[in-house]
């Protein structure tokens, strides 16, 4: 028995080493997820290297009224806007604003929502219920309306958009983590850690959190897309960064007066938003398939 177990052990050890490679392989095999990841990687690279990549980096704040509303040509690949600035350059710089808003707003929502959900899910009693009812109230209010109210009250700026989005988005993570914690808490390994004498923070952080991490990662990826969309909507309504910041949402708003003649004016930022949101959603779906422990376990057994 021991001999057989040994060779079995060695074989599984080899399999384990190949585990990460297999995840990577599954990931590259999933075309949609791979496309999503590529889009997001592009977004990040564009945000970092915007000054290098854009043909007219100065056009973020400079106007050339003589060249206003030019259709796409060899010089201005995506055309120019009402001020005569190069649209491509503005969109590339706009990636920075988009990524800043999305990362900080979602990051705050995760940092607030995850601990609340974890604590509320771990303990049973009225404080947990109170926390969840508060998040229910936030969920009951339409996100965009609450964000508009907050951004309107505090004035248009990137900081206020981030604040508004953080306040409205944390309950999504709180609810998710709450539900996941409740189910993982019933698992025998959690009960056994408690029986062993592990403290509540230890159980929550070292046992429960790693086991629900994949759900949080998936939700965060999809949440990024939704946040970017809402941020664009707030920008469109004039509640985002004030001009001349190259905010995608506001660029679409500005273009309305010139439609349908200046079709490129609205199309360029529109496609940028579309690609980024789609990228996060595809990545989120792909990650769900790859990280889902049930699916992964089934794959592990079938080999």
């Amino acid at each position: 028995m021991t001999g057989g177990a040994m060779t079995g052990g060695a074989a599984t050890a080899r399999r384990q080493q190949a585990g990460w490679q297999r995840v990577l392989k599954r990931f590259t095999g999933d075309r949609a997820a791979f496309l999503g990841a590529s889009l997001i990687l592009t977004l990040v690279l564009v945000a970092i290297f915007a000054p290098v990549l854009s043909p007219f980096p100065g056009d973020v704040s400079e106007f050339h009224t003589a060249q206003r509303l030019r259709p796409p040509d060899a010089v201005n690949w995506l055309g120019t806007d009402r001020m005569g600035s190069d649209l491509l350059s503005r969109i590339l710089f706009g990636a920075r604003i988009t990524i800043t808003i999305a990362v900080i707003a979602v990051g705050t929502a995760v940092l607030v929502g995850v601990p609340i959900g974890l604590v509320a899910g771990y303990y049973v009693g009225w404080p947990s219920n109170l926390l969840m009812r508060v998040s229910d109230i936030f969920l009951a209010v339409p996100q965009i309306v609450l964000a508009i109210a907050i951004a309107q009250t505090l004035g248009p700026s990137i900081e206020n958009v981030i604040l508004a989005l953080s306040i409205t988005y944390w309950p999504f993570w709180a609810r998710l983590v709450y539900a996941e914690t409740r189910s993982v808490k019933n698992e025998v390994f959690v009960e056994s850690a408690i029986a062993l004498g592990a403290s509540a923070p230890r159980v929550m952080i070292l046992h429960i959190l790693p086991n629900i991490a994949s759900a949080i990662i998936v939700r965060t990826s999809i949440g990024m897309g939704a946040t970017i969309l809402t941020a664009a909507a707030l920008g469109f309504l004039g509640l985002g960064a004030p001009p001349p910041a190259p905010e995608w949402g506001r660029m679409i708003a500005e273009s309305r007066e010139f439609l349908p003649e200046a079709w490129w004016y609205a199309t360029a930022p529109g496609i940028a938003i579309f690609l980024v949101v789609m990228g996060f959603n595809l990545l989120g779906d792909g990650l769900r398939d790859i990280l889902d422990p049930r699916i992964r376990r089934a794959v592990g057994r079938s080999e």
Partner: protein
Amino acid sequence: MPDALAPSTPATGEPILRVKDLRRYFAIRGPFNRRLGWIKALDDVSFDLQQGEILGLVGESGCGKSTLGKTLMGIHQPQSGEIVFEGRQIAGLTPAKHREMRRDLQYAYQDPGASLDPRWKIRASLHEPLIIHTKLGEAEREKRVRAIMEAVGLPASHLDLYPHEVSGGQLRRVGLARILTLHPKVVILDEPTSGLDVSVQATVLTLFRELRQMFNLTYVFISHDLAVVRMMCQRVAVMYLGRIVEMGPVEAIFDRPQHPYTRSLLAAIPQIGGARVTKDFWLEGEPPDPGNLPTGCRFRTRCPKAQAKCAEIEPTLERAAGQEAACHFPG
């Protein structure tokens, strides 16, 4: 077949664990959280556990065996009753105090695989109890973990595996190793052999005995496998619907069962060359709904000896032959 290591009746003296009138009810809740009744998972359970003995706890599924084990561990809070461990009352202790005491009283899960964090390597799971309860440094912990791995007969290379990469029999060893790193005094073994094939069962049981000697352990052995209980235990408590109905030395229970429920359970053990199982076995149907127990004796609905008295007065554990039985008409 009690072995030489195990005295058939343990030395008398102050019991290491004393349980008195332990009660654990679970509320049955209907719509709007209205309480519809109680499931009496443990109903006035009392027993003593002597240092060094192995007490078997047998009964059908759902009779409260595991609930008893978990209540002793403090996973469930008892409604009332006493648990005295080494002279200290531990029922209703604050969680912090309880945590400290858990070092000496450990619970081995029915499914040791599920009791290990699936995302942790076995090494991390074995280090954890030491991190929680001791101030040992990393190197010292590793030394102790390796010693325990050797004691349970596993190669140290298994420390780098994940629980799902190890076989069922080996997982039990890992589960035991995890508990033993703290050198507890009492270990509650919950169905330690279920789901193992016979050859592995034998190895695991031998291991339990060796470890008991090595670490001077006292076991509460929860099982529905009567053959295993007969082989392992010195004393047996038979549970039926949350109550101990018969308790005594293993030979007395197996040779001269006094409670009709015990007799019926024993008749269900198949024997090579023996009478057909069905001949003496008249235990029919399911146990009654634990949320709605019959009046008087809770076994009377399935008992062939039931009489009018049984429906009126609930019998208590009383001396009958060499053991105690809760029956108005023992024998």
